[in-house]
């Protein structure tokens, strides 16, 4: 559904807006390919979307140390099954590589810059 919406945006504002039901909105159909390709893509996708959609991942920009801390925090605060060993290393490395620190928030741009 989200992809459909994105497509409608791409077509331009002339079209009537597609309305999403609450169920559709809260149960988004996502696939691993929504994340950048690379080693760990599938592991990250399935580990994270057990609880939440990928939107918050895709909008995040953290160092490897902060991502690693976040794994501990999610276990301690949100009851995530502890991530350890090779799986943890794979997931944290992927996240730091693809969603590492940046100077600006993702998606931000000067509205008048061509």
């Amino acid at each position, binding site marked *: 559904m989200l992809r459909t919406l994105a497509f409608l945006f791409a077509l331009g504002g002339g079209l009537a807006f597609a309305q999403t039901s609450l169920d559709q*909105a809260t149960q988004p159909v996502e696939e691993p390919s929504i994340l950048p390709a690379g080693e760990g893509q599938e592991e990250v996708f399935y580990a994270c979307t057990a609880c939440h959609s990928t939107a918050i991942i895709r909008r995040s920009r953290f160092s490897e140390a902060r991502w690693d801390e*976040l794994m501990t925090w999610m276990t301690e605060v949100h*009851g995530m099954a502890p991530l350890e060993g090779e799986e943890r290393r794979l997931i944290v490395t992927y996240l730091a590589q693809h969603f590492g*620190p*940046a100077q*600006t928030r993702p998606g931000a*741009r000067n*509205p*008048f810059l061509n």
Partner: protein
Amino acid sequence: MKKAFRTERSAAELYADDPERADALVWNRRGALKGAALAAMGTAVGGAIPFSAQMPGGTLPALFTRPAAAQGSGGPQMMRIDGKVEMILQGERPLVLEAPETALDDAVTPNDKIFVRNNGQLPEVAANPDAWRFTIDGEVNTPLTLTVAELRSRFENVTLQLQMECGGNGRAQFQPQTRGNQWGNGAICNAAWTGVRLRDVLRAAGVKETGRYTGHFGADPHLSGATDRAAISRGMPVAKAMDEDTLIAFAVNGGPIPHINGAPVRLLVPGWPGSLSQKWLTRVTLLTEPHRGQGMGGTSYRMPVRPIVPGSSNDGADFADMTSMPVRSILSSHAHGTRLAAGTRNLDLRGAAWAGDHSVRAVHASVDFGQTWTEMRVAAPANRHAWQRWEGRVALPSDGYYEVWYRATDSEGRMQPHAPANWNPQGYGANAISRAAILVG
């Protein structure tokens, strides 16, 4: 020509990634823009930059930290669900939707413009809202279980315009980025809530001397589906619970509360982090010690008492719970990225401002990068804890690229700062001056 095209294209890409580096690479500048570099940047933004002399190095790129709600591609992802206008999508699961500032142009926020911040899954819709039960227990003389119907008939009903704002509103301003929803300023609403005062219900239950804090519980299941933990369960000192504006609300804007905003009954704790305003309310318990529920302790809804290095690691043990939210303003008349007809020389601005438990003393706007400020007219709040609308006119000396900077000052004399203060790991309290880009001609 070919070269110029390539420069612009790479500028856009570079700026999207790292504006300061782009600034140095593309414009080769340190300090104020001059001559050819200024002309080139004017070309890139699509117009002249009238106040360029006042732009220090790094000033323009700071603009890039704000998404343009008015833009199609490149701006934030938008979503429209049943019962809401088009909102900024922060996340689908949990569902989190931010109101664009221009959607907040009503004095009283309509239901379809109330932001959505869920922490867990949505609970089932109550088949019979009047029969919904909730409990007051803990350190009270007489624990109470009341239906919504009993609540409405037994206690005085009050209707108040109340600000409700997410504790993380403005989080996207922080650099380095902090964890959580990357809110602009739109996690705020000022609807007319009807309910009973929490203090009236607490007095009916009889709070014991030992009842010093509250703990709140709702019906929304944890995001993971786990049944041994709450999606969110926060609490506050009993003094805030006894504030005359803290409500158990069963209606908004004259009708039922939308399910997604907490029907049939929720708390409304105005001026403090919105997470205290428990949705789908099932229980308020009175405690001797601060509540230990989901969202309490550590770095959750807590701020450093002694400022920490931005980006550093901290477990929040020395932090203090957030109380009153800081002063903030929104501009609802013009979206970031608005293009105006050539020859436009005046802008009639309007918006809203609020300051937690305090009020707003003044709002100022600047179109010359903060060099001069024009005082706006600020209306009195409809009641305590309501936001205040503001309006006023600024003059534009020519066509070209401008930024409208807008800044509120609270009743204690505290202004919105130039940069978000007191960086903390979960990004609370960012209330820096906001900037909306405007292009004339």
